[in-house]
């Protein structure tokens, strides 16, 4: 095992220990659905290859918005953390598969209580088909399924079941469809533009909170569409490749469903600015930092929503012969 491998293992071990300690110290509780949308692209190559990715994401949810207007003095503060492990397997240039295992930590504080939860989220399996991938253009389509493996019975200090949005899992089968394309201009060979669109069809949890004496409630998160355009620039350094990235992301989410009815104060439109920078010392390894800032929202009713996101990602490819796409 090389020194870098050891360091990676050490870092992951520390993160895992942190997560375990969070779990032990948590007052019990919350978070719903890990944000896997921006994390789905799979590396492909001429030959079979495995790659492993770990992503940490911090979601600060402290922006109270009614329709288009920001509202001050909300008594709540919320944030979420996601820890995603992703294993990719590329069969050939065309076909690749991915498995994602998330862990989710969420915190909801008011002036009178502090609640947090940590637990395993819903597993996802994704299949990606690369329609073409060349030096200057690429087009992928992918489809996936999210299984209800996540924990949906996080309880508060009082042992009362926390609300669905505070759970690690959704309790439903969800379906994910995605397409992405990129184009590099021959006149600017280090600049790549890209676009992606994702549709997430969310299923219904028909027995959220059910017990032997309570039938539970029906709940579903709203279906959603995410679209993003952006550009990244490949800089060659002595020690590797540095790739800054800037984009524009539009998200639409339908109302959540409670008891088959549209839940008030859910769904809407979000426009945000994703930023990122990644560094790859070689073709096998890369590290990336991301941020996302809200630009505009038009929400249904009053919602507490994302103020900013920060992310950190490590990629490691185990067998690598020749790939075109080092950095996602």
């Amino acid at each position: 095992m090389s020194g870098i491998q050891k360091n990676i293992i050490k870092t992951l071990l520390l993160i895992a220990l942190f997560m375990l300690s969070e779990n032990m110290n948590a007052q019990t509780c919350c978070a719903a659905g890990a944000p896997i949308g921006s994390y789905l692209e799979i590396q492909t190559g001429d030959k079979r290859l495995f790659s492993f990715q770990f992503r940490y994401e911090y979601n600060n949810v402290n922006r109270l918005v009614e329709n288009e207007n920001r509202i001050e003095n909300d008594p709540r503060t919320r944030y979420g953390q996601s820890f995603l492990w992703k294993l990719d397997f590329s069969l050939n240039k065309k076909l690749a598969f991915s498995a994602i295992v998330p862990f989710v930590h969420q915190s909801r504080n008011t002036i009178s209580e502090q609640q947090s939860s940590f637990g395993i989220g819903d597993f996802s399996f994704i299949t990606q088909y690369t329609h073409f991938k060349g030096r200057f253009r690429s087009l992928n389509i992918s489809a996936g399924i999210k299984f209800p493996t996540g924990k949906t019975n996080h309880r508060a200090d009082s042992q009362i079941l926390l609300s669905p949005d505070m759970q690690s899992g959704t309790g439903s089968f969800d379906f994910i469809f995605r397409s992405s394309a990129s184009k590099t201009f021959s006149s600017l060979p280090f600049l790549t533009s890209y676009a992606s669109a994702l549709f997430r069809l969310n299923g219904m949890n028909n027995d959220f909170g059910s017990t032997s004496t309570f039938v539970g409630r029906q709940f579903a998160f709203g279906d959603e569409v995410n679209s993003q355009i952006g550009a990244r620039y490949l800089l060659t350094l002595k020690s590797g490749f540095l790739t800054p990235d800037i984009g524009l992301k539009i998200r639409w989410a339908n109302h959540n469903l409670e008891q088959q009815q549209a839940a008030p104060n859910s769904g809407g439109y979000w426009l945000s600015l994703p930023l990122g920078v990644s560094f790859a010392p070689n073709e096998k390894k890369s590290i990336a930092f991301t941020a996302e800032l809200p630009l505009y929202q038009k929400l249904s009713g009053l919602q507490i929503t994302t103020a900013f996101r920060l992310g950190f990602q490590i990629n490691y490819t185990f067998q690598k012969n020749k790939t075109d796409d080092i950095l996602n």
Partner: protein
Amino acid sequence: MKNLLFLTILLLFGCNKDDNQAQTDWLIPFDEVLDGGPGKDGIPSVDAPQFDNVSDISFLNDNDLVIGMFHNGVSKAYPHQILDWHEIVNDDLSDISYALTYCPLTGTGIAWDRVIDGSKTSFGVSGKLYNTNLMPYDRATDSYWSQIRLDCVNGTQINKVINTYPIIETTWSTWKAAYPNSEVMNLTTGSNRNYGSYPYGDYRTNHSNIIFPVSNTDDRLPAKERALIVMGDQTKKVYSIELFAEDRAIEDTIDGTTIIVIGSKSKNFIVAYEKGNLTEVVAVTDQLPTIATDTNGNRINLDGTIESGPLQDVQLTTFNSFIGYFFALGAFYEVEIYE
């Protein structure tokens, strides 16, 4: 790689412990106590309400609902526009202290006495719901209460029944015509909300939209039909607003007590008083604050005072009652429906 696999397995199994413990210290089915989402005090109660005179209020429309309180000749009105966003207002009126509790999901407004066992407390919004109804908590003991059950269901005050004060729920146009000199809660609440908008979409009128499940579904009347429930010790009886399409006074008997239920759909109020020494009562129209008179010429005001007649200045005794959406009343009580 083996280390990673090991850590992943450890996390998978380490995090799936079942922390659901049996609960025996609740008066209501514990599993049916639901987390509404915002958390405790995530919906902020108003603890220092500000008031203006009726003539200074411009943010209300004639059909907007208000809840009125009366005591020692003073009256105050609390607009639904504000209560929809805050659910509880802790206030005082003359020598009484109360929490005006209002649940937008069940349409129930009830004034709770804030003095419990001689100690004054305030109530906050716990963020929990039982039968989709508000569960206030008292800040002195952190006990949880059920608004429609009118008792404490968890905590050191468990089993205690809350004292209530009479209120009147009606439209702004009716209120200002009846009580032009009253005080009205204004929008200086300590929070910044868009009070002109209703936060629950079509919930008030969509009969099939009941956001959280209830333990008993009573569909004898449309779910969101507003009705007065009179709370006898044994008998709970419901009087729908539809009974009062024409202004009307109904004489009825609840657990041996004769009551008069007076209502008007056009003016949007229903009140229930003990009949006492009144004779046959009939509704009167368009003479606010007078809403009824009896055959002896006693003129009865909306707040139950006898304005003139042989019983002048007598205050009728309010029969324990409150208005709510029918589905919610039926979820909590086995109700009779006045036909």
